[in-house]
């Protein structure tokens, strides 16, 4: 069996613990569920694994209306009805042939691939719990059945599966049991400096330090939507264009860091130091 080792990429700082986890999940061929605050790089990780290992990436972006089946395939019934009635002309489709009207979803494409691919199910917690249970069997056995023709599509090569979730608890126990789970903690200031350096290697170190310090100070104030990594990166980008080194008393362009109107108001009033409850 071919082994895969993921070592991080030039755009993604990989914490050694996470590296170990990713490689263990790859070796054991288990889906890896990543939870954690927005901006901790959950989704990015799958992209970077695919890039680093030179695999194709299939992404399923979950919505609350998703049924699970369309993640595997959909059938273009209207087109087929139309072809049945008016003929398929020169399109090369044959009304008799079911597969001419199938549109494969990300899971379908991943299972049918003839090489190892990375399959990302993004924000799985948005789906209903019975959908999760359906997906669970599909992912566990790496196969699904096409209802209309009662045929099974089975993956010849198990894809490397990554799943992300924002919420902490609602995934069902059986679902969690069949996966590896890792909660990505928010990066420490040291890790954050490494992340920032990857993205802004040439920026004034003074600006980086000032911005990072203010960022962590703001995070500590308990805003409803605390600024996350992506906000910090955008902010540094904006500061660089504006050519300003931020002052802790009055950081400029605060709208890049704080997104909720209530948070910005609290920041302006300056009473944000107090947390409402413990």
């Amino acid at each position, binding site marked *: 069996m071919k082994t895969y080792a993921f070592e991080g990429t030039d755009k993604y700082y990989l*914490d050694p*613990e996470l590296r*170990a986890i990713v490689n*263990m999940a790859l070796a054991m061929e288990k889906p890896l569920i990543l*939870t954690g605050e927005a901006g901790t790089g959950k989704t990015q990780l799958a992209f970077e694994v695919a890039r680093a290992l030179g695999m194709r990436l299939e992404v399923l972006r979950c919505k609350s209306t998703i049924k699970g089946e369309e993640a595997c395939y959909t059938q273009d019934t209207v087109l087929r009805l139309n072809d049945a009635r008016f003929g398929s002309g020169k399109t090369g489709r044959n009304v008799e042939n079911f597969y001419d009207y199938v549109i494969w979803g990300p899971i379908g494409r991943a299972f049918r691939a003839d090489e190892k691919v990375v399959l990302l199910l993004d924000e799985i917690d948005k789906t209903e719990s019975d959908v999760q249970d359906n997906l669970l069997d599909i992912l566990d056995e790496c196969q699904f059945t096409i209802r209309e023709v009662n045929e099974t599509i089975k993956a010849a090569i198990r894809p490397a599966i990554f799943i992300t979730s924002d919420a902490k608890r609602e995934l069902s126990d059986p679902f969690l*049991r069949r996966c590896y789970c890792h909660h990505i903690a928010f990066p420490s200031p040291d890790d954050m400096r490494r992340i920032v350096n990857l993205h802004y290697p040439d920026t004034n170190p003074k600006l980086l330090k000032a911005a990072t310090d203010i960022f962590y100070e703001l995070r500590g104030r308990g805003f*409803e939507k605390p600024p996350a990594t992506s906000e910090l990166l955008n902010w540094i980008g904006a500061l660089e264009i504006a050519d300003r080194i931020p002052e802790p008393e009055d950081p400029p362009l605060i709208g890049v860091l704080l997104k909720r109107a209530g948070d910005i108001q609290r920041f302006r009033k300056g009473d944000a130091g107090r*947390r409402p409850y413990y």
Partner: protein
Amino acid sequence: MGKGEDARTASALFVDFVALLREYGVPASVKDLLELNQGLEKGLVESLDDLYVFARLCFVRRAEHMDAYERAFALYFFGIDLPPVAEGDPELFQTKQFREWLEQQVRAGKLPPRAVWELDPEELMRRFWDTVREQMEGHHGGSRWIGTGGNSPFGHSGNAARGVRVYGESGGRSALKVIGDRRYIQYSDAVTLREENLRQALETMKHMKAEGPRDRLNLDETIRRTARNGGEIDLVFERDLRDKISVVLLIDNGGYSMRPFIRLTQMLFTKLHERFEDLTTYYFHNTIYEKVWVDFRRVRAFPIETLLTRRQDTRIVIFGDATMAPEELELPGGALAYWGGAAQLPSTYWLNRLAERFRHACWLNPIPKDQWDSTYGAYTLNRIRRLFHMEDMTLGGIKGMVEFLSEK
């Protein structure tokens, strides 16, 4: 670590570890253990730090069990018994780890016998955590024998055959250093609510109904109608399912007993408003009689009879401490806030009717669950609890409420 035989002896070693994890509340199973074994056979674990990461993947699924896992790991493999509280938390004095430490210190003459009275609590806490840190420092680095060391209570006393030899560290931070950070203690389910986690918990409450534009093809009906049409295609569309949920929030805003919870009430109210488009709020004082009020100051009344005509799948959230004098709840004419007359039906009558009409009704109580039997007004609280599913205002409580209200 070698393969085959070594892995088998290793798994014998881990059986006790699984038992300890279960004791600590981590639902580790035999299947997980087999999985761990497979990983060992594949050679995934080369150091104790790898083991820390890999065993965690095998045994721990939820962030709220993470801290318990780390404590179990520290105890089993390093003989360090960490208390289940964060540094600086005065709950420390309630833990068995603290009591044992205190006894040891007194016996060793490092603390006076009456230390608890003579030293101030901060000083005691500081000394306790200093000892823990020293223990952790002492273990840091080098190679060691798992489970065979000195003060581990698991009796692998120097018997090398049952130990697993592991070397060095895996580039990153050592397991023990990571454990020392206690990164996961904040996820334990007992934490009280903050704005961030409340919104997240409410987000999970959904109720799907057919709504919106008819843009979904009903295949069966299309085929039937097309066939009837002599083969002329007749497409039939239907509405898609949308999240549609209507919530009625009843808030106890009167009385002295609810005063400590005003900010909590406000927060809950704002968050519910953000989450549910279809939310109606009414107010009451202590308990519910034949009317509630539309406004915060309880001037404009709203009859319960009208409320009872709402759809049966309406979700009802009642927010109050449910503590009062028994006669307020059970006697006719019990209302304190206004004169209802002797003919006024008792509150229990109205609560019963609410509970009967709305299956998805939940009582949210700001008093923590463990005080429900001992608080002032425990009698009425438990009486009401028999009628309504009751939860407290912790993150676990809100999740319980959401789960209950989301049932089909």
